[in-house]
C-alpha cells in the first residue's frame, strides 16, 4: 500500500503548510536559536519547580473515586438507556428504526453468503458463487490484474479456515463504507462550498477520529441494540471522517480557471457540481474512499466486543483462550483483506481515470471478456446454490492449523528462551527513561506542569497553539483525571520520540535504497493492518504487563506510517540537488544530514504529527497491557456499569490531549517550515 492510501489525515486536518518564507536567513537562524534557548529555559524552570514542589497538588485520585463530573456523565448515559428502553425520545426511536432496517438488510445478505436459513441447510450462495461475483466485480471495475489478485485472496480466507468470518467482515465493511460515502461525500461537498459548514464539521471530525472506540461501544449498543447495526454504526463513526475530509479537499482544489470557464457557459451550481467538480475530483475522492475502507477494517476487532460478525471474533477468541496462533491466523486474514481491498480500490481509481480520458469502455476484447465472465459467474452461482461442494468451503487443504501451531510454538520459544533476557531492557528503560520524565509531568504540581506545557506550546506553535493548549488543558483539569492524563501524555511523548527516531533511521535507509524499500514495505503494510491485539501478546510474553509493553505496542503501531512518510520525503528530494551535492564532494553522512533530511523536513514534521496521533490511539489497548492511566479508565468504563462516567471522562480527556498535541505540532510545523532556509547544500 502506498503511504497516501493508508495514512490517516491529521486530526486537525490542518497540515498544509504556508509556503511563505520569512525575510533573511540570518534573521531566521537567530529566531531558531531564540526558540531553542527559550525551550531550554522552560525546561530548567520546570525541573527546579519539580524539585521543590514534588508530590504536591498532583491531583491524584483513587481507582474507584467518583466525582460530580463522573456522576453527571454517568447520568447522561443512564438517561439515554432509559429513553431507549421506554421509547420516549423521537431521536432515540429513530436510531432504533435505523437499527432495525440495517439489521434486516444485513440478515438478508448473511442468508445469501454465510448463514443458513431453515429449512435450507446452507446459505444461498456458497464460496464458489461468492468468489465468482467478487471476480466479476473486480474485473469489471478494475481489470484482469485485479481479478488475479482478488481470487487468490478469497481462496486464502477459506484455506486459513475463516471463510464465513471473512465474508461477514466484508459485509460489515461494505455496509459501513457505502453509508460513509453516501453521507460523507455530500458533507464533503458542502464543506468545500461553505466556510461555515467547514468550521462546524471539522472539530466534529477531529473528535470522531481521536475518541477511543471503546468509549462509544456501550452507547452504540444502547442506541442501536446488540447486533450488526451497532457494529456498522461503530465502524461508521471511525471510518467516515477520511472520505469527508478528502472529498472536501478534492473539490476545493478543482482549479479556478476551469470553473470560471465552465461558469461562463451559464451553468447552474448543481450542474457545475455534477459535470465539473465531482468528475475532476474523482481520483481524490476514490483515495478518500480507500482510506475510509482501511479505517473500517481497523475497527473489526473492537466492534467484535459487541458481537460484530467477522474476523474480529476469532482474534478476540484467541486472546481470551490464550492462543497466540488463533489470533495470528485471523489477523493475517484481516491483513490479506486489507491488501486486497486497498490494491483493488487503487486499481479501480486508475481505471476510472483512464476511462474518463479515453471516453469509452474499452475495446472488443474487454467486451467479450466481460460477457464470458458474466456467464461464468452465473454458472458458478447456479452450481454454488445447488451443490454442497460448491457451497461449503472444503476443509482441505488446511493452511490455518499448521500456521496456528507454528505460531504457538514460536510463542513457547519466546517464553522459554527469550523472556528472561528481556527483563533488563524493560527495567533499564523504565527506571532511567520513562520514570524521570513521568515524574516531571505527573509529580509536579498541576499548575507547574500546565504552565510548562503552555510555555512550550507558545514557543513551538505560537499564539494559536497557545490558545488551543489553554482550552484543552482547562477542560482536562475540569474533567478530573489530571494525574492520569499526565501519565498518558508522558507515555505518548516518549513513544513518539522513539517513533520519530525509527522513522528517520529507517526512512532514510528506505529513501536511499530501493532494495531496502522493497524489503521493508510489505512488513510495514502488515504492521499497519495487523490488529494490534495480535502483536500485543508476544510483546506481553517478552516484557510482562507494564507501561513499557504498552509503549512498545504503540511504537509498533505508529512506526510504519511515520517511516513511510519520511521515506517518501527523502525520495522526493530533487535529483538535481543530490547531484549538485555529490559534485561538491559531500560524504554520505553529509548528504543525509545536510541535504536530504533538511529538504525532507516537512515530511519528518508530518511524520511526528501522525506518529503522535497513532500512538495516542493505542492508549486504550495499552491500558489492557498494564499501562494503567487513561486507557485503563476507558476500559473500566466499558466493563463496569458503576464506572461509565469515569470512562467517558477519560475518553474525552484523550480527545483533548489529541487535539492539543495536534495543534501544537501542526502550527509548530507551519512555523518551522516558514522559517527554514530553502536549502543548505
Amino acid at each position, binding site marked *: 500500500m502506498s503511504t497516501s492510501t493508508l495514512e490517516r489525515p491529521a486530526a486537525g486536518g490542518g497540515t498544509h503548510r504556508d509556503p511563505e518564507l520569512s525575510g533573511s536567513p540570518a534573521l531566521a537562524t537567530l529566531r531558531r536559536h531564540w526558540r531553542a534557548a527559550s525551550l531550554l529555559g522552560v525546561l530548567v524552570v520546570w525541573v527546579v519547580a519539580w524539585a521543590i514542589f514534588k508530590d504536591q497538588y498532583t491531583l491524584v485520585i483513587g*481507582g*474507584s473515586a467518583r466525582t460530580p463530573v463522573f456522576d453527571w456523565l454517568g447520568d447522561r448515559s443512564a438517561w439515554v438507556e432509559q429513553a431507549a428502553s421506554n421509547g420516549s425520545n423521537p431521536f432515540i426511536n429513530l436510531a432504533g428504526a435505523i437499527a432495525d432496517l440495517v439489521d434486516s438488510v444485513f440478515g438478508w445478505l448473511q442468508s*445469501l453468503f454465510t448463514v443458513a436459513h*431453515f*429449512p*435450507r*441447510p446452507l446459505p*444461498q450462495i456458497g464460496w464458489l458463487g461468492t468468489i465468482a*461475483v467478487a471476480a466479476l*466485480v473486480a474485473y*469489471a471495475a478494475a481489470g484482469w490484474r485485479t481479478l488475479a489478485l482478488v481470487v487468490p485472496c478469497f481462496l486464502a480466507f477459506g484455506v486459513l479456515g475463516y471463510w464465513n468470518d471473512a465474508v461477514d467482515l466484508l459485509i460489515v465493511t461494505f455496509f459501513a463504507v457505502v453509508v460513509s460515502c453516501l453521507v460523507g461525500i455530500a458533507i464533503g461537498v458542502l464543506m468545500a462550498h461553505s466556510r461555515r459548514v467547514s468550521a462546524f464539521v471539522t472539530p466534529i471530525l477531529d473528535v470522531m477520529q481521536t475518541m477511543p472506540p471503546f468509549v462509544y*461501544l*456501550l452507547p452504540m*449498543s*444502547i442506541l442501536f441494540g*446488540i*447486533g450488526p447495526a451497532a457494529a456498522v454504526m461503530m465502524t461508521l463513526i471511525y471510518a467516515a471522517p477520511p472520505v469527508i475530509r478528502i472529498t472536501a479537499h478534492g473539490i476545493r482544489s478543482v482549479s479556478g480557471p476551469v470553473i470560471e470557464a465552465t461558469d461562463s457557459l451559464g451553468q447552474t451550481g448543481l450542474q457545475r457540481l455534477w459535470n465539473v467538480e465531482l468528475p475532476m475530483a474523482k481520483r481524490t475522492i476514490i483515495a478518500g474512499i480507500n482510506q475510509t475502507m482501511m479505517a473500517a477494517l481497523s475497527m473489526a476487532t473492537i466492534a467484535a466486543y*459487541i*458481537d460484530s460478525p467477522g474476523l474480529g*471474533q476469532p482474534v*478476540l477468541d484467541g*486472546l*481470551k*483462550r*490464550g492462543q497466540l496462533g488463533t489470533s495470528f491466523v485471523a489477523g493475517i486474514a484481516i491483513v490479506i483483506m486489507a491488501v486486497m481491498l486497498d490494491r483493488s480500490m487503487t486499481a479501480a481509481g486508475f481505471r476510472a481515470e483512464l476511462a474518463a480520458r479515453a471516453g469509452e469502455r474499452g475495446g472488443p476484447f474487454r467486451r467479450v471478456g466481460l*460477457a*464470458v465472465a*458474466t*456467464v461464468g459467474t452465473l*454458472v458458478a452461482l*447456479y452450481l454454488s446454490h*445447488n*451443490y*454442497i461442494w460448491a457451497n461449503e468451503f472444503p476443509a482441505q487443504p488446511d493452511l490455518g492449523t499448521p500456521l496456528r501451531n507454528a505460531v504457538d510454538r514460536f510463542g513457547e520459544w519466546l*517464553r522459554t528462551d527469550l*523472556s*528472561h533476557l528481556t527483563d533488563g531492557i*524493560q527495567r533499564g528503560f*523504565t527506571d532511567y527513561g520513562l*520514570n524521570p520524565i513521568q515524574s516531571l509531568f505527573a509529580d509536579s504540581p498541576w499548575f507547574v506542569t500546565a504552565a510548562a506545557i503552555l510555555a512550550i506550546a507558545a514557543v513551538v506553535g505560537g499564539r494559536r497553539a497557545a490558545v488551543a493548549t489553554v482550552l484543552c488543558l482547562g477542560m482536562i483539569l475540569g474533567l478530573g483525571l489530571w494525574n492520569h492524563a499526565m501519565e498518558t501524555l508522558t507515555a505518548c511523548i516518549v513513544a513518539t520520540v522513539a517513533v520519530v527516531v525509527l522513522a528517520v533511521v529507517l526512512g532514510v535507509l528506505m529513501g536511499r535504497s530501493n532494495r531496502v524499500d522493497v524489503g521493508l514495505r510489505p512488513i510495514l503494510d502488515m504492521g499497519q493492518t495487523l490488529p494490534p491485539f495480535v502483536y500485543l*501478546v508476544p510483546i*506481553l510474553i517478552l516484557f*510482562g*504487563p*507494564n507501561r*513499557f509493553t504498552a509503549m512498545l505496542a504503540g511504537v509498533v503501531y505508529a512506526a510504519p506510517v511515520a517511516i513511510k512518510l519520511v521515506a517518501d520525503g527523502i525520495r522526493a528530494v530533487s535529483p538535481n540537488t543530490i547531484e549538485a551535492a555529490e559534485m561538491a564532494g559531500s560524504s554520505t553522512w553529509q548528504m543525509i544530514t545536510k541535504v536530504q533530511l533538511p529538504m525532507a523536513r516537512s515530511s519528518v514534521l508530518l511524520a511526528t504529527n501522525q506518529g503522535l496521533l497513532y500512538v495516542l490511539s493505542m492508549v486504550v489497548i495499552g*491500558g*489492557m*497491557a*498494564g*499501562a*494503567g492511566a487513561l*486507557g*485503563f479508565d476507558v*476500559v*473500566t468504563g466499558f*466493563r*463496569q*456499569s*458503576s464506572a461509565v462516567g469515569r470512562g467517558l471522562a477519560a475518553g474525552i480527556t484523550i480527545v483533548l490531549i489529541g487535539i492539543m498535541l495536534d495543534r501544537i505540532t501542526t502550527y509548530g510545523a507551519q512555523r518551522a517550515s516558514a522559517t527554514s532556509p530553502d536549502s543548505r547544500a
Partner: protein
Amino acid sequence: MFHIPIPRGNSMELKRPRTVAAALAGLGLAVTLTGCGGGSIQNATSESDTKCDDDLNVAINPWVGYEADAHVLGYVAENRLGCKVNYKDLDEQVSWKGFGSGEVDVVVENWGHPELQKKYMADQGGDGSAVDFGSTGNEGVIGWYVPPWMAEKYPDITDWKNLNKYASLFKTTESGDKGTLYDGDPGFVTNDEALVSNLKLDYKVVYAGSETALIEAFRDAEKNKKPMLGYFYEPQWFLSEVPLVKVDLPEYKDGCDADAAKVACDYPVYDLNKVVSKEFADSKSPAVDLVKNFTWTNEDQNLVAKYIAEDQMDPDEAAKKWVDDNQDKVDAWLKD
C-alpha cells in the same frame, strides 16, 4: 425457486442482448450439468420435533469457563430440544442490558454483580427485566495467588501475614519501592486496593489490564521462576496448566465486605448462577426447564474449558465430547 441476485454494478452489461443470450446459454449448460452431479443441496424435511419455536439467545461473556457452560447448554438445546441457538459475544454489562430488549435470553455464569442486579432485577429495585434462575453448581473462588514454585520455596508465603516479609521480592518497575500485586481485567470483581491499605500491606495494586496479560505474566513467572503475586479465580482452565497456589487472607465472615472501603477479609465463595430475561422465563420454550435444571461441577467446567483453550477444540465439538461422555447428567437436566 430461489432468485439469484446480480450485483447492481454490473446490470449495465446485462442489458446488452448478446450478453444476456450468452448468459442464458451458460445457465442451460449448467442445468444439463446437474444431471450427472451428486451431493446436491436438499432442504431439511420439516422437523417433527418442533417443540422449540423461538431462537435461544445465549450471551458469551469473555472468559473460557463461561464459554464452556454456554456451549454445553447450547449444544443440548440444539440437539435434544431442536432449538436454534445464537451465541452473542458480549460483556456482562451489555448482556444484562440485552435482557430488556429481547436480544439476550440467558447469561449462564454470573459472578454476583450487585450493581447490575440493582438495575435489572425486580426484587433489588430494578426494572425487572432480569430473573435469577438458580445455581450452576459452580463455586467461584476469588483470591490472591502465587506460582507453584514460590509456594514450594517459601512455604509460609501462603499466609497473608507473611506477605510484608516478602514484599521486596515482588518489586517491579511499576510499583516503586513496594511489592506489586497484579490485578487483571477491570471488569472482574475486586476489592484489592482497599484490602492492601486495610491490611497495611507494603504493596501497590498494578493493573495488568486484561486476563490475557495476567495469564501470560503467571506463565512467565512459573517458567522462569520469577516472583509474582496476582489476583486470580477458580474455576479457571489455566489452573490445570499452572496450578497456582492461593494465599490465605483473613477469613470471610458474613457482612465483612459490606463497606467496600473498609474490607479487610477474603472474598466470599460465589455461588455462580444463571440469569435469564423475564420474557424468556415466562415463555413456553422447552429450553426454560433446561436452563433452570442445568448444574454441573467445577471439574466438569474445567474439563470442557481445557478442551477449548488447551486442546484448541471448537467450542461446539468440546461440548459434544463432554455431553457424549456424560449422558446421565444431561438426561437429568431434561427431566421435567
